[in-house]
């Protein structure tokens, strides 16, 4: 029995180590998801208006899952060291539930990321930016969010439109209904601004003279942070789940071998 005793000791050690790693990863996951949820780039309004903001839902689930993983890892360590069947059974069942939630978060983040295409943001920008007559409060809230976000995006990233300023010329839009093409071929935020926040040369901007308007599109500035968020939640979660899978299998084996 000494050999299997040794084997059990090694398994105990491995399980404790595995749970320590799970605990630390849980904290890291919580921190990462809190970072994403705080929306440092201010892009949440765009997603909210597309009614496709599930990558934020995935991040919210990630916060709670991370914390649950940390708590459960402590329970697991105690259970393994004490070789207590009840504790370990509770641990395994709760871990399975947490596993399911984290799996939902990863799959949601990965799936929803596929929906965020340039055309989606283009359509939303054309239909909502500077829309003057809104149907209800929800519409008004989303329109204001989209308008403010785009204004900020165009100013800070020195860009215009989704693919370029020609988006405003190729399509009709809520902006076009409100402002005449002769005065505003594109929004004034597309113009190169001086230190006071007004266009350096308005005629140059209207005519499209190089150097007086922003000629590149904002899609990179939008998709970059969103990709980072989606992939960060999805792949880090996936890595944690792979590790947790191994630890859980080991714990189940250990549990089945404990004598009363």
């Amino acid at each position, binding site marked *: 029995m000494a050999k299997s005793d040794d084997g059990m000791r090694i398994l105990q050690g491995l399980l404790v180590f595995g749970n320590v790693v799970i605990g630390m990863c849980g904290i890291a996951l919580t921190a990462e998801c809190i970072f994403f949820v705080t929306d440092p780039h201010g892009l949440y309004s765009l997603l909210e208006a597309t009614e496709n903001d599930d990558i934020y839902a995935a991040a919210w689930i990630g916060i709670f899952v991370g914390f649950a993983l940390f708590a459960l890892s402590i329970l697991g360590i105690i259970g393994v060291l004490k070789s207590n069947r009840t504790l370990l059974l509770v641990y395994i069942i709760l871990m399975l539930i947490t*596993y399911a939630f984290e799996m939902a978060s*990863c799959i949601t983040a990965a799936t929803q990321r596929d929906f965020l295409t340039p055309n989606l943001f283009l359509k939303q920008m054309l239909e909502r930016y500077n829309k003057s007559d809104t149907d209800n409060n929800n519409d008004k809230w989303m329109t204001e969010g989209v308008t403010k976000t785009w204004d900020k995006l165009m100013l800070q990233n020195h860009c215009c439109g989704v693919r370029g300023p020609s988006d405003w010329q190729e399509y009709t839009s809520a902006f076009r209904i409100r402002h005449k093409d002769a005065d505003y071929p594109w929004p004034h935020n597309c113009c190169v601004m001086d230190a006071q926040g007004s266009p350096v040369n308005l005629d140059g901007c209207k005519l499209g003279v190089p150097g007086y308007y922003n000629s590149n599109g904002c899609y990179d500035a939008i998709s970059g942070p969103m990709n980072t968020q989606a992939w960060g939640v999805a792949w880090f979660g996936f890595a944690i789940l792979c590790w947790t899978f191994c630890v859980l299998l080991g714990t189940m084996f250990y549990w089945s071998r404990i004598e009363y």
Partner: protein
Amino acid sequence: MCSCWVVLAFCCLGQLCADQSLKPQIAAPQLATNNPTLTTVALEKPFCMFDSSLHPNKSYIIYLYAMKESASVISSLVMDNSGKPLDSTFQQTSGGQLGPYKAALFDVPNCASPPRLADIGDVNKVSDVLKQYLFRVGDDGTCLYDPNFLAVCNPPLAPDTTYRFKYVLLDSTEGIMKDQTLWSDPIKTRRVKLPLKIDTWPGRRSGDMIVITTILSVLVFLLLAGFFASVSSAVM
């Protein structure tokens, strides 16, 4: 780049391109990239086009006429029987549909010292350069609705329509036309598409999503199998 623009400026001033028939030209596309837009067209001013007709001691003025291409079957005359240019407005010709209307008047551009397009980079000079080099037809959105407006009204053009333009030189004291260019080549304003037509379907699923979903599904299945196996072995 700068030397290219200077050469282009000279070329379009008619010095090098001697064979070109004199017509109003659209502004240089390297300079005015957003041209023509939905309702405006930026034209080059007539540099050195009327030099043979200018006398040194007289004062001249240039009129710009615009009309829809479809109006050329109705009437494309810009002067009446006595040689005086027409005074038609945008409203009188229904926006250029019934014949040419006067869109602008300005001084004869300076042929000897044209604006240097290389100065575009300088923020202090760019307004002057643009003003001297080109004219934007359709620039004024308010003059049609302003009852007090007395000057020549230059309202926005219609989208998705072909227009033609002509410059006319006249003697400001006598008010008689001295010279005119040909009608320009047809220039079409932009056409817009509806945003409803934009297709937002993402297409294929990305590989990452398929990998994550399949592997996680398999792992969950294995975990549940392991759980039931250990519970059943503990029960027995």
